[in-house]
């Protein structure tokens, strides 16, 4: 048997040994110290992005970054595009409507096409769980998962962790309530794994129809009543409820959902007085979150999440291309 004891603190590693992954596909692949390394690197970019009017750092100059989005996205695509451009990469966006990429050979063929264009890093979003890993298998360059089905959205979890760390100082003992449509949420799956790995106490709060079975295995304690789930929480992370799930399929109506699971000011008062409010966006105001809470100047970290998104993606793009760029210790 190989030695599988996991060190509690960051081991004394440098260079590629710090992050020995070719792709970033799932939080499940990462060790706690690898997550912390990504956060530390992103912290540097967050400061640089805030401090300088001219944000260019051209370490990826001459490299081609393809953002292949097989599912609609505005903010994630924009965030990856800005991150790539700030690092000096030539960023190309490919939008493939769901209709044009229904057949799998087409998906593999698309991957081969992207590969043949000599991309240096590919960012992929796809509506099907596991699709990004399937493509990653077929290409020669690093692949970043920008969301695959209900499975994973690792950069979202990392940017959420960075936001929490900046606001709360750390994770140990922190109570984080992830509330809403946990069943269909890749954001929730990535966040549960990430926050549990970092030492937080994670709660999954959802109506039974939107709670995945055996969610405990992802490191979260399930709650079906919002008020119980919010009790004493340091962070309240709301999830988006998709329109098509609102009308009787999983919940009776948006207004009933808002009554039972919407984050209102009154409900937020059940959490700790300084509890942080987060949402991956885009929000359904008046459904899962009320505007007063979403726009709360001290409590809401929603715009900061967007800001940290760029920093996290810069860190990921930088780290994953270090080997190809021949950075010392990474080649």
């Amino acid at each position, binding site marked *: 048997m190989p030695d599988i004891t996991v060190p509690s603190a960051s081991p004394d590693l440098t260079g590629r040994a710090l992050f020995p992954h070719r792709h970033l596909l799932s939080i*499940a692949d990462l060790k706690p110290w690898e997550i912390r390394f990504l956060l530390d690197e992103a912290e540097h970019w967050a400061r640089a992005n805030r401090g300088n009017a001219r944000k260019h750092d051209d370490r990826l100059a001459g490299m081609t970054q393809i953002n292949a989005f097989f599912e609609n996205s505005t903010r994630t695509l924009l965030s990856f595009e800005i991150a790539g451009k700030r690092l000096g990469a030539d960023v190309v966006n490919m939008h493939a409507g769901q209709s044009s990429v*229904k*057949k*799998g*050979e087409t*998906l*593999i063929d698309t991957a081969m096409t992207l590969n043949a264009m000599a991309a240096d890093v590919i960012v992929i979003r*796809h509506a*099907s*769980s*596991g*699709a990004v*890993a*399937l493509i990653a298998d077929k290409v020669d360059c690093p692949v970043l998962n920008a969301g*695959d*089905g*209900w*499975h*994973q959205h690792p950069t979202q979890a990392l940017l959420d962790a960075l936001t929490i760390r900046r606001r709360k100082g750390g994770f140990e003992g922190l109570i984080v309530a992830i509330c809403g449509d946990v069943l269909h949420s*890749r954001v929730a*799956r990535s966040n549960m794994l990430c926050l549990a790995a970092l030492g937080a106490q994670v709660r999954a709060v959802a109506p039974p129809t939107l709670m*995945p*079975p*055996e*969610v405990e*295995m*992802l490191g979260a304690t399930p709650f079906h009543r919002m008020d119980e789930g919010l009790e004493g929480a340091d962070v309240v992370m709301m999830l988006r409820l998709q329109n098509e799930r609102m009308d009787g399929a999983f919940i009776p109506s948006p207004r009933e959902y808002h009554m039972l699971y919407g984050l209102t000011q009154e409900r937020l008062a059940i959490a700790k007085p300084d509890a942080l409010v987060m949402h991956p966006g885009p929000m359904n105001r008046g459904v899962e979150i009320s505007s007063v809470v979403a726009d709360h100047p001290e409590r809401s970290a929603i715009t900061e999440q967007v800001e940290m998104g760029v920093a996290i993606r810069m860190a990921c793009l930088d780290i994953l291309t270090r080997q190809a760029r021949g950075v010392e210790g990474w080649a």
Partner: protein
Amino acid sequence: MNKLAIINGKLADPAGQSLGNGVVLIEGDRIAATGDIPVPEDAQRIDAAGLVVAPGLVDLGVFATDKPAFHFGGITRAALMPDQSLPLDEAGLIRQATRAGKPDFWVHPIAAATRGLKGTELAEIGMMQAAGARAVGTGRQWIADSGVMMRVLAYASGLGLTVITHAEDGGLAGKAVATSGETATRLGLPHAPACAEAMAIARDIMLARVTGAAIHFRLVTTGAGFDLIRAAKAEGLKVSCGISPAYLFLADNAVTDFRTFARLSPPLRSEDDRKASIAAVADGTVDVITSSHDPRGPEDKRLPFADASPGMAGAETLLALSLNLVRDGHVSLNRLMTLLSGNPAKILGVNAGSFASGSAADLIFIDPDAPWIVDSEKMAAQAGNTPFDRMPVQGRARRIMKGGVFL
């Protein structure tokens, strides 16, 4: 008439309790006699020393007529599922299907219970029976409308045909591609609870009770499903069930890493249900082991998990994997041949799967310990979509006789 005498082999007679010594005497395409009998002067002697002689396998419920794979696996007859590019819902298609394998392989088509397998109008079951259909089937899905299902059972029963059904409640199963549980949650896959199976079985048993029809649940894979089947058998209903080796030797964690070769219908179950399936084979609840052979190429399998087609190429590994049940002490080799050959032949009403006089001379010579390694790259099947890739197994059919003629 051509006379053959198979001598020196160990006989795995499905009707027997243990392996026996003896002679199998064949005249033409039929078995003339078996057992401790004198070898006639004019019979050609065939030495089966060191091998087990058994009836050729009768595979109850395959999706393709894939002769090389069947022959590799010692399968001499198969019941073809009605789920073809044109559903087998019409006499002409049935007749065509019966001819597809002859002479060295026999296909017994299963007639679609409803037109286009749509689950609404009865198909021309009687005409299809006349054209060679040996059973009636609901195909890959159940019939949602209980009224339609009751009429299918009643009508088929009048014709003396067994109804082969898919045990998954469609409403619960929906678009699920995995069983609810840790693996589905981790991978973010659409899932349905395992009780979708027992729900369907419970309904169909009640309909079998009121109609008096014979019903065969092609794949039963959960402990709750087997409990219902056990109770129905104890009551004396004409209920039987099958399973394929995948559900006996794999659990739902086999789909980790989105392995589409392990995407099956019904989906793989929990480890507890896997163990319950083994127990159901051991206690006699399971009547049939089928390959559920469904070869699928990369265009169907090299896809994101939920978009891939379900099914596995199982014909080549059916015998070797099933022999694990004998090695592990769950069943005798004779009982295994009942599951692989005798019972399927009875359900289809064909004169095979037996050593009795007059039975078809479909025989295989098995080397039960021969080791080999499953290799999806080198399979005889039309496609190598096996979740057992790289697995070492034991047991090969060394020779196959179909209708008194060695292949």
